[in-house]
């Protein structure tokens, strides 16, 4: 039974009854943070706690989403709820934008302010030998006043990042094709293009993994490579993680499509995942320009 078919019976605003999921999720996350805090301090048992907590959390999410999907497919969600989902997804993406903004801000500050200041005439009192050249502008320069950072080569835009840009942009197109197909009621076409999109996401991640290996093994570019390494890996790393999450979202949507979920008119699950994917796309464009090019 699909949502639209018994639309009239949906309550004005569905409010779920008592649920054990939220408390379980919080319970799982307790072990996640407990474990993480211990693990980074070298206590091996922290890892067990972390993964056990993650497992609890994931299982809970599975059942939670299961509930939500069956409520949705059971026709409980009115149009008004659909609007709620739209608002919430938009605000969630806004919060993600602000999270990335913190790291872009750090990159901006390091390049425009801290590295030049460290190499300024006044600071020569402390670091007489340091020349303020941002690493990507000058090969072999490490942006490390104390000379504590081993020389490394920076990551240029060619070839992998450019390929990855093409991949992400293409995936945006394939996703849109799938969306149009869904609206046109061509389910198998939708599913086909969704799989393509997921595959493009996986390819992107594969390339990025390769790029990281290349950085570590051949360029000697590491997380510890001064502020360049810090911002490079944290920005691209968090982005990669978001690609991973977005890819999972698309994957689950694809599987749900296979089960016959969604209708040409009501498919917010699909759209939410698509919005997220486009957001990840846009962040990548920012990265491509700011991190790899400039």
């Amino acid at each position, binding site marked *: 039974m699909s949502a639209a078919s018994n639309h009239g019976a*949906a*309550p*004005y*605003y569905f*409010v*779920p*009854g*008592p*649920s*054990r*999921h*939220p*408390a379980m*999720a*919080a*319970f799982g*996350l*307790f072990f996640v*943070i*407990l474990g*993480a*805090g*211990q693990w*980074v*301090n070298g206590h091996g048992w922290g890892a067990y706690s972390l993964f056990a907590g993650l497992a609890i959390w994931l299982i809970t999410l599975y059942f939670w989403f299961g509930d939500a999907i069956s409520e949705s497919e059971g026709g409980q969600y009115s149009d*008004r709820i659909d*609007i*709620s989902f739209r*608002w919430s997804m938009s*605000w*969630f993406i*806004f*919060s993600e934008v*602000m*999270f990335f*903004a*913190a*790291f872009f*801000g*750090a990159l901006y*500050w*390091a390049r425009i*302010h*801290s*590295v030049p200041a*460290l190499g300024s005439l006044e600071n020569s009192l402390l670091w007489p030998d340091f020349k303020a050249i941002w690493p990507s502008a000058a090969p072999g320069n490490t*942006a*490390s*006043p*104390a000379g*504590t*950072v081993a020389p490394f080569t920076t990551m240029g835009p060619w070839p992998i990042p450019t390929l990855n840009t093409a991949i992400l942009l293409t995936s945006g197109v394939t996703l849109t094709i799938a969306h149009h197909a869904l609206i046109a009621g061509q389910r198998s076409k939708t599913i086909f293009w969704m799989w393509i999109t997921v595959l493009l996401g996986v390819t992107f991640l594969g390339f990025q993994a390769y790029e990281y290996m290349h950085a570590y093994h051949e360029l000697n570019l590491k*997380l*510890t490579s*001064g*502020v360049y*390494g*810090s*911002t490079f890996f*944290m920005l691209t790393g968090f982005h990669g993680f978001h690609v991973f999450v977005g890819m999972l979202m698309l994957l689950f949507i694809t599987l749900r499509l296979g089960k016959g979920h969604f209708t040409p008119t009501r498919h917010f699950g699909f759209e939410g995942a698509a919005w997220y994917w486009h957001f990840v796309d846009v962040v990548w464009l920012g990265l491509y320009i700011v991190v790899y090019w400039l």
Partner: protein
Amino acid sequence: MSAVLDHHGGHAHDDHHDHHAPTGWRRWLFATNHKDIGTMYLLFSFTMLMIGGVLALCIRAELFKPGLQYFNPELFNSFTTMHGLIMVFGAIMPAFVGFANWMIPLQIGASDMAFARMNNLSFWLLIPAAIMLAGSFFMPGGAPAAGWTLYAPLTLQMGPSMDAGIFAMHIMGASSIMGSINIIVTILNMRAPGMTLMKMPLFAWTWLITAYLLIAVMPVLAGAITMTLTDRHFGTSFFNPAGGGDPVMYQHIFWFFGHPEVYIMILPAFGIVSAIIPAFARKKLFGYTSMVYATASIAILSFIVWAHHMYTTGMPVTGQLFFMYATMLIAVPTGVKIFNWVATMWRGSMTFETPMLFAVGFLFVFSMGGFTGLILSMAPIDQQLQDTYYVVAHFHYVLVAGSLYALFAGVYYWGPKWTGVMYSETRGKIHFWGSLIFFNVTFFPMHFLGLAGMPRRYADYPMQFADFNMIASIGAFGFGLMQVYFFLFVVVPMMRGKGEPAPQKPWEGAEGLEWEVPSPAPFHTFETPPKLDPTATKVIG
């Protein structure tokens, strides 16, 4: 009226959740009801207020006399840090979320919050976070001792508890973001027909704007502490000059969050006061529209003033001037609010029950804190006062006499609706006058200490500062006792239902949909949207 509502529940499409409140521990642990979740938020934050308050008393006990009396300086720094963190993230913020949970659906005629299960998750996430924070006292090396602002590179020297704290704050951030999304969506999408945005009670408005601020800045805090984490353990150099980073960068990111954060803690307080003053002046709020605009202006300005916390880090003169002017501008919209409240009282017909007393107390004492803020915003003066007790005085005037007083006012105002019983007016008055006097005894002398140059976060101080510190400590214990009194003689009796039964609308001049449902508010309200009169303050069918 209420009878109408009760039958309105609409059995036809209501088969998936029971009509009767679930009972026992499941009711709370598995809650999806905004009122129950609101209650849990309020109880949680009160507990945190007690814990944070006891830490404050430890601080004041140590500072009672010069010389180290009870604690070593490291522990003292942990007390200061944890007091700040627990009060900000544990007491004040969740208390306002509790109010939002209880009141926003009632005020706008919604059946519940937009995402009832996520609402419960927002609450329950606070528990692991609080356990991790409080538990850090028992970790090797003791609790974090780098101040609530967690400045790098001091944080790099902290023990394992720092990481526990960082992860706890991640979780609290997630909780705040989910809570804010819930509030925004509820307000934007669940208002009863006829409840237009510009007819909405100001409390809902202030929360709408606060939630926007929260979503904009909590992720930035998450970013800052994530960088701290990777600097601590994974060899990054964000804040390490040896690798090209900058400790001051931490401060910029932190205060980009931190300054809006302080308005997050005051805007909902403005909302509560805007409900109470008209009710007891028996006169409509003066300048509703300008109140909305003023709130929005404060929120927007709050993004461009952060570096007023950093005048002494050595900014270029243009930066110094920009942030000085921008900060001083905030006095304008805040002033508009103060003037509107006074104009509301003007030629009203006032009575002074406890909620009104706290609201007037708020106005008076918060403004003093606002004026000291203005004095601090002047860059040259701030260079004298930065990191002294003057700043401590400033922010306790706005946070305790501001946020906390508004919360008290709100508890007295809406408590009868929550519990169905009236508090004792005499006890409320004792609580108010006791708090007002002891508050000023505690924090007023701190202005003098700051002017005379006593730095904050000091476990010991020169002998010349002894007398004012002693007065402040005595005041602090008095203030603490008043809160114990409040808990034992006001909160507990109300929770146990002891007291006169509250009428549906206990306040003659009060307006709004929350007074259209019985006291205590039934488990489910407005399950189908009510029909409203043109002012959107009454249910007409």
